[in-house]
């Protein structure tokens, strides 16, 4: 179908999203009805005051300039105009006559989505608040009963063990949801308490904590061995680094046969210490590898179908380690195994 330029213009004008085409330096080439409506100004106003005048801050023009100059090909900002949240998604277009590139921006009202986000957060917060106390109580009750009732029938013991296991799972899930909530509200950084610690201490504590929740034969300390420069000192939040290592080591254990050891190795290079967690397990498929740090992602495989998990552990761990000025990455090959790298700023001195 052939479309004339005029027809295309009419089509763009009728789009339910705002469209604005700008050429460097911020010359307006095209703007549709919806864009004017979202910006809350008339076309005359836009032409006399310039595109900049439509925005309360310079984030929009910085974004456009960045793309026009070739600094990036696409970017997005959400600005507040007349009580509305307007999302501006910009892409690079054709080279402009006077140098630089044309920038095409799509404007969308995302106020409703923002409101829903807010409602979702409040809902989650209320749910977490209401169910956490009772579940915490049930969990502790099951563990106390298991420990303090030595002479019960096998049926009763099994019932208590199952209750304990189920509440442990719920407890972990609630813990993960809480951490997700804190991460999503952008407040995770406020929670961090950065201190200096030897790698060895935090690794051993992580393994120790796993002993309570994982039944393993041979015992965990025979399956996991430490190597390298574990006496090196890093800057981190102890509890959060411990949990991060627990998540990664737990995965390594789940995906490895019991006779294949898991190596936790520390390597120091310049200002960084990297903790490598290496298993010789089933490995992660290439198409899943790029998604393992995204929230709620769980690879569909036989092991995951039989094990329960929230799909949040690695996402939260990744968020925390980045906030500690570190990084987490992963390499894997199906059938050979997986290596996770947790890099953290190195502290002076050794243990």
């Amino acid at each position, binding site marked *: 179908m052939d479309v004339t330029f005029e027809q295309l213009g009419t089509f763009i004008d009728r789009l339910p999203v705002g469209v604005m085409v700008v050429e460097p330096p911020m010359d307006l080439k095209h703007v549709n009805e919806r864009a004017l409506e979202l910006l809350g100004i008339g076309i005359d106003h836009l032409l006399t005051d310039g595109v900049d005048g439509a925005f309360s801050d310079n984030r929009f023009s910085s974004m456009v300039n960045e793309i026009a100059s070739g600094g990036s090909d696409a970017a997005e900002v959400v600005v507040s105009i007349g009580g509305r949240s307007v999302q501006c998604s910009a892409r690079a277009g054709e080279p402009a006559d006077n140098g630089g590139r044309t920038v095409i921006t799509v404007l969308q009202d995302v106020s409703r989505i923002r409101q829903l986000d807010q409602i979702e957060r409040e809902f989650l917060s209320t749910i977490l*608040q209401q169910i956490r*106390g009772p579940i915490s109580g049930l*969990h*502790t009750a099951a563990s*106390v009963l298991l420990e*303090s009732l030595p002479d019960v029938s096998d049926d009763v013991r099994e019932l208590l063990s199952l209750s304990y296991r189920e509440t442990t799972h719920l407890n972990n899930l609630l813990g993960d949801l809480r951490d997700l909530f*804190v991460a999503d509200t952008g407040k995770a950084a406020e929670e961090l308490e950065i201190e200096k610690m030897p790698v060895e201490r935090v690794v051993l504590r992580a393994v120790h904590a796993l002993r309570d929740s994982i039944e393993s034969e041979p015992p965990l300390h025979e399956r996991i061995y430490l190597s390298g420069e574990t006496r090196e000192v890093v800057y981190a939040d102890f509890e959060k680094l411990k949990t991060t290592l627990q998540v990664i080591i737990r995965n390594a254990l789940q995906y490895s046969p019991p006779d294949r050891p898991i190596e936790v190795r520390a390597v120091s290079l310049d200002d960084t210490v990297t903790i490598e967690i290496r298993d010789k397990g089933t490995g992660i498929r290439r198409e899943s590898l790029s998604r393992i740090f995204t929230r709620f992602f769980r690879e569909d495989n036989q092991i995951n179908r039989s094990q329960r998990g929230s799909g949040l552990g690695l996402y939260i761990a990744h968020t925390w380690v980045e906030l500690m000025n570190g990084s987490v990455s992963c390499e894997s090959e199906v059938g050979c195994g997986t290596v996770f790298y947790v890099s953290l700023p190195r502290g002076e001195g050794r243990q």
Partner: protein
Amino acid sequence: MGKPKVLIIDDEPLLVKSTCMALRISGLDARGAPDGLSGLKEAETWKPDIVLLDVMMPEMDGWQVLEQLQETPSLRNTPVVMFTAREYANGKQLARSHGAVDYVPKPFEPVSLIEVIRRYVSSTVPNPG
């Protein structure tokens, strides 16, 4: 020296009962109180070595109880650890700015609670591991 005394003030009866029992199994002396007022009375007469205090309670909330504890000369130096179900991102700083020594978010594992208690009361508290 006797067993370290732990007072738990929380309006969740199952949590109080089970946590008290878990602490007793671990060699601590533990008692519970279902609200702020009875918790304060218990603290004055029993003189615990540490108080575990819930933030969200009807009538008197945890911060008010904490303030009262600090105004009582015989309890001023008793360490207080706050429990809370709220999503305080900066819970620890918040607890400390009110004068509590620490903060434990719910849900918690009894083992990690004992770890926290060990930090603030004498070394006679048994090691959880």
